[in-house]
Each structure stands twice: as structure tokens, then as C-alpha cells.
């Protein structure tokens, strides 16, 4: 009898709990939990999310996650169908990892306003779009306009060395160039220089379709002459010409940005999205003194300019409930279709608004945007800044390890180190 009462109580309690969970969220106030990285772009987007949420009486819960652990944490959350997030930050080079766990967003109207270049191949899964970009992340060269006139800005690696040495000799700056090098920050030194020298991390050069990479035997480009020369360029810049800090192989993008913002370096390479931060007098000593230029081209390049063009996006885990999905889609569309949001993104941060109508409007009205666009997305070669095979995270980390080892070891070992790296990274890619 007592046992029956116990079972009734437990059973009744469970049913009540189940029933309360089954109540559609539409009947209650919708809450959206947003997983994001603390970064000026995210913070700008979130500022507008709050406006949208306040107007619609949606509760917004913000969960910041460090970039250093973002992929692993979010991957674990998605694969375990965790309920921690309803809207998540999504990056192009995670598309292949998360595609199957994300809600298709083909029905988000704002996607019609975006270039397909920033959606494919990564934000596609089984023919459906899986993320809604909220900014275009495009790497560019920042330089000190108070130290260099437009005509003095280096166009070649040789000019970069000479210009840096001149500024250092004149006591204007401590360093000519600074950029992040260690994992996961290799874009800001190794990668741009390999690309600007006509090379690539995988072969064929500039190919991003997995089928084509597979057809070519998943061949790594790390030991190609363009990559070897790029690493030699960095080795010389650090050890011989001394235009870059000796600690650079251990720098993250934040370390490099701090040196540039302290006024200690004449040039750096960063996403355009850092423009607002570099130009903020509260944070930067070089505020109001910076401009942008294209990637400085290496001696082996057979083109005049190159840039990468990728998005950062918001996505919705497939396992969140229908009411949250509906609200999240409405929010993400609103962020892209509202011109004030898109214009503020550009003005406050330097991030390119993905809405092409807004970009056209800015080209007409904003000379700074015109310049940013000219040195980036209007480049002769436009590529994606990552690869989209399943083993890319391991490939990426391993490639950076070999590049760092090459740049910190003896110069005569660079080629051999990169050959070993090419063999190892090819094996990793082939496991895809």
C-alpha cells in the first residue's frame, strides 16, 4: 500500500513535470539564450538584439564564452543536445562540424539580401542554409596614417621591410609590423603571407570544395615554395631585419592588437571588425591615426591583390523548441534587414554589414567604407579564409605548430620542418 502511494506520487509528479515542459513556449514569455564570444562585433550585434527583445518582450540571456574554448564547448553542447543555448555564434570554418545539428534557416527573409559567396560552402547542409551572417570578417592591413602617406604605404614585402626599418631608425615606432602567430591566430601573419605570395594551405591553390581537394589526394601546400618563402620572410623579419617583435611567434591576436594600439607598431594585420576598437581613444593611443591597405604582396604572387571574405553568423541549434526557433529566426532576419542596425555595425566597429543593399548605400555615402571595400572585397583574388573538411580543426592546429616551429628554429631547417608538416597535415586531411 505504501509502495503504491509512493509510485503514485512519483508517477504523478513526473507527469506534472512532463506536462509543464510540454506547454508550448508561445504560451509563456519566450527566452532566448545566446552563446557568444566577447568581441566588439558580437557586442554590437547583442546591443541590437536587446532592442529587438525589449520591443517584443522577449527575455534575452547572454552567455559569453572565450574564443579559446568556443568550438569544443559548443560542439559538445550541440552533440549532447544541451539546452544551454538557443542562438549560437557560428563561424565559417565550423560549418562542416555543426551542419547536421543546426536548424535550416532557408525561410529567413534576410538571406536574400546577402551575397552567396559568404554562405557557401560552409553554411550549407544537405541543400539547406544553416546560419544567418551578422557581419563579414575580412582581413586587412592597418597602418599608421600619421607616419605613412598613401604613397609611402608598402606594396611588396621588400618595401615593408625598408619602410619599417626607416620608421624604426627615425624613432617613430619600436616595430614595423606586428601580428598574431600562435594557434589559433595564424591568419594575421602566416596565412595572409602564404596567400599573398600565391600559395595556399591545401592544393590546388584557392580550392575550397572538398571533392576537389579529395581528387587531388588531400595534398597540403605547407612545403610549397610560396609557403617556405613566407616563413623565411617571417624568420628574417624577426631575427635579421628585426622589424617584428621577437616574441611574435607566441602572440595571439590580442597581444598583437595591444602592441599596435599602444602605438609601438606601424602596421598590423587584423579583421576590419577591429577598426572601431583601434579608433577608440579610450582603448587606443593610435585612435584617429589609422588607415587600411591591401595585403602586402609577396614576390611569387601572380596577381596584384588578394583578400579573404567570410562571415560570422548566428545559428539556431536544431533541438531547441519551435517557439524559440520562430523567435530566433525573426530576430536574425531583423538584424540584417534593419538598416540602422547594419549601419551602426559598420560605424561602431568597422565590420562590413552583410546586407548588400546597405553596402551599396555605404559605397555611395561613406568614403571610409569605399576605401575598406576597395582594399578588400574588390581585390583581384577573393578567397575563403579557411577550409571546410571535417578534420580542419586538427589540420589547422597542426599546421600552425609546424609553422611556429619553423619560424623559431634555425633558418636552414625551415624547408625540412615544413616538408614534415606537409606530410603530417596531408595525412590529417585525408582522414576526413
Amino acid at each position, binding site marked *: 500500500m505504501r509502495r503504491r502511494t509512493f509510485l503514485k506520487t512519483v508517477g504523478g509528479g513526473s507527469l506534472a513535470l512532463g506536462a509543464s515542459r510540454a506547454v508550448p513556449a508561445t504560451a509563456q514569455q519566450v527566452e532566448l539564450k545566446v552563446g557568444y564570444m566577447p568581441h566588439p562585433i558580437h557586442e554590437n550585434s547583442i546591443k541590437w538584439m536587446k532592442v529587438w527583445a525589449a520591443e517584443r518582450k522577449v527575455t534575452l540571456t547572454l552567455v559569453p564564452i572565450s574564443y579559446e574554448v568556443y568550438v569544443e564547448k559548443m560542439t559538445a553542447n550541440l552533440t549532447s543536445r544541451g539546452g544551454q543555448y538557443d542562438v549560437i555564434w557560428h563561424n565559417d570554418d565550423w560549418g562542416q562540424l555543426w551542419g547536421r545539428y543546426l536548424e535550416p534557416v532557408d525561410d529567413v527573409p534576410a538571406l536574400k539580401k546577402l551575397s552567396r559567396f559568404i554562405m557557401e560552402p560552409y553554411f550549407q547542409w544537405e541543400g539547406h542554409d544553416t546560419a544567418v551572417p551578422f557581419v563579414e570578417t575580412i582581413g586587412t592591413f592597418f597602418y599608421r596614417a600619421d607616419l605613412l602617406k598613401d604613397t609611402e604605404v608598402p606594396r611588396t614585402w621588400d618595401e615593408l621591410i625598408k619602410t619599417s626599418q626607416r620608421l624604426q631608425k627615425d624613432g617613430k615606432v619600436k616595430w614595423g609590423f606586428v601580428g598574431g602567430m600562435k594557434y589559433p591566430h595564424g591568419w594575421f601573419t602566416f596565412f595572409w603571407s602564404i596567400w599573398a605570395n600565391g600559395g595556399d594551405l591545401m592544393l590546388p591553390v584557392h580550392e575550397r570544395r572538398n571533392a576537389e581537394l579529395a581528387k587531388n589526394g588531400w595534398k597540403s601546400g605547407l612545403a610549397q615554395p610560396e609557403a617556405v618563402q613566407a616563413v623565411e620572410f617571417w624568420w628574417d623579419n624577426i631575427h635579421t631585419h628585426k622589424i617584428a617583435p621577437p616574441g611574435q611567434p*607566441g602572440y595571439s591576436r590580442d597581444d598583437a592588437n595591444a602592441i599596435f594600439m599602444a602605438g609601438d607598431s606601424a602596421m598590423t594585420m587584423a579583421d576590419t571588425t577591429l577598426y572601431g576598437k583601434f579608433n577608440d581613444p579610450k582603448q587606443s593611443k593610435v585612435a584617429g591615426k589609422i588607415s587600411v591597405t591591401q595585403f602586402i604582396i609577396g614576390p611569387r604572387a601572380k596577381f596584384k591583390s588578394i583578400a579573404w571574405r567570410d562571415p560570422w553568423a548566428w545559428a539556431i541549434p536544431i533541438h531547441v523548441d519551435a517557439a524559440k526557433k520562430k523567435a530566433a529566426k525573426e530576430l536574425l532576419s531583423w538584424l540584417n534587414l534593419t538598416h540602422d542596425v547594419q549601419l551602426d555595425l559598420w560605424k561602431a566597429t568597422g565590420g562590413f554589414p552583410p546586407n548588400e543593399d546597405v553596402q551599396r548605400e555605404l559605397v555611395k555615402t561613406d568614403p571610409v567604407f569605399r576605401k575598406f571595400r576597395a582594399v578588400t572585397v574588390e581585390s583581384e583574388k577573393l578567397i575563403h579564409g579557411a577550409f571546410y573538411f571535417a578534420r580542419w580543426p586538427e589540420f589547422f592546429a597542426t599546421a600552425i*605548430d609546424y609553422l611556429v616551429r619553423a619560424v623559431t628554429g634555425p633558418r636552414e631547417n625551415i624547408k625540412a620542418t615544413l616538408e614534415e608538416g606537409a606530410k603530417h597535415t596531408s595525412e590529417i586531411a585525408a582522414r576526413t
Partner: protein
Amino acid sequence: MKGSRRRFGARERFMLVLILPAFAILVAFQIVPILIGANASFRSWSLFDPQKTFVGLANYRRILADPIFYGTVLPNTLVFMVGSVTGGLVAGLGLATMLNRKFPGARLVRVGILLPLMVPPVVAAIMITWMFNDQFGVVNALLGTLGLEPVPWLVYRWTSFAIVVMTDVWLWTPWFTVLILAALQSLPLEPHEAARIDGAGPWQVFRNITLPLLRPVLMVCIVVRAIDAFRVFDIVWTITKGGPARSTEVFSIYAYKQAFVYLNFDLGTAASLIGAAIIMVVGGVLYKTLSYVVEVSR
């Protein structure tokens, strides 16, 4: 039958009930995750697409055949363990001996020495990273005032590794100090007084009387810290992340990177279990040595 009933009388059942909550927590948060991990180590299990196909010992074979694992990670872990334990022990012994004497402000000094024990390791590691930053760090600023060239501390393997070990020693020295000081204060006075009457100097007393009497406590400290140092993660991750180019990677970082950076959950769990086996062997050997040394010193 009678015997078993006697074993589980009312008193024993009450004891079992008291143990039950702790046991349940242990099972839920320790045993079950270890079993899940062990299961994953025999399967093809990437974090982003868990196929969970049974692959036998393939993951173990891959870890054991990885040159980074046996050529860098294991030596680093052992060097870290020896360096950290030795450094902490020597510094702790020295400080405890100093604090065992009466001098003005002794209490204040004791509190000051305990401070690192209250600093979270990650906070300490961030602080140290900034101190050794090649552009803005206080260490290079000091070198500069002495007319020396700044050093890119975190770019080279052995300078990075030395910083990591030094940080760990700094954090753990107070722990050694407290335990050794407590042991020092409980030592019998007679052997010391007898030695002094026989004309032994302070070093001779310390070497031949104090140290042998401290041996059981020192051995416990060494075993506990050695096992703990084998598992170090936070300090290494915060200061070097195992870099530059994996050259300061220790065991826990290797397992973490396999599972959560490369997203190979199967290899990460296999590496963890290999590490658990190694530390069980190392711990067992240390424990046997401890028992032997303590027995001999009686």
C-alpha cells in the same frame, strides 16, 4: 549466514546509509564518466560526429605510436613532476625551517608565505604571463634597467617550461611549508638537545637529526604532490597552452587537445586512460618506496 547477518547489523546498515549519498555522487560524477570515457576509447568517436563504431585497441595503438606523446609529452610530464616537486619541497623545507624559529613578526611572515596558496592557479598563471610578456612585462623592464636585452620568454621551449615550473613551485611552496612546519613543531626536542650537547653544529643537527625525523612527512608530501603534478593542466594551459609548437605539452594538455581541440574524443579518452595507468604505476612505486623508507627510518 549468521556471520553475514552479524556483519550487516543495524549499526553497519546505518553506516552504509551514511556513506550512500557520497557513494552516489562518486558513482554519478566519477565512475560513470570514467566508464563512458573508457567505452569511447574503444570506439571511433569524434566529438562532432560520434559514430561509436567499435575499433578495439586502435586508439591506444595510435597514442602509443605518436612521437609527440612518447618524445615530448611523457618526458615533459616527468620533468615537470620532478622539477615542481623538488623545487616546492626544497623551498618549503627552507621556509619551514626558517619559520620554526622565533623572531619578531614571525606570524606576519607566515601569513605572507601562505598567500600564494590562496591565489587561484589560473589567476597566478595570467599574472605570470604578463610579468614575462616580452613587450609590457615587468621582468623585461627590469632587464632593461640593467642594460640587458629583452627576452622573448614564451617563444622558446625551455624558458617557457621553466616559467611554468617556477609558477607551480611558487604556488605549492606554501603547502609544503605548512605541512613541514607542523611536522617540525611536533618533533621531539631530546634528540636535538643531545646532539647539541655532543657538539653537533646546526647543519649536522639538521642533516642527521631533523631530516631523518621528517622523512615520513616528506615522503607523504612527495607522493601526494607528485601524483597531483602529473595531472597538471591549468597552469600550463594558461601560460603556454602546450606551445610553442607543442614543446611544453604535458599529459593533461595532450589528452585535452586530442579530445577538444582536434575533436578526437576517442583518442583523448584513450590518452587519459593511458595516463591513468601510468600514474597508477608511478603512484604505486612511490608508495612502496615511501613505505620502505618510513620502515627503515623507524
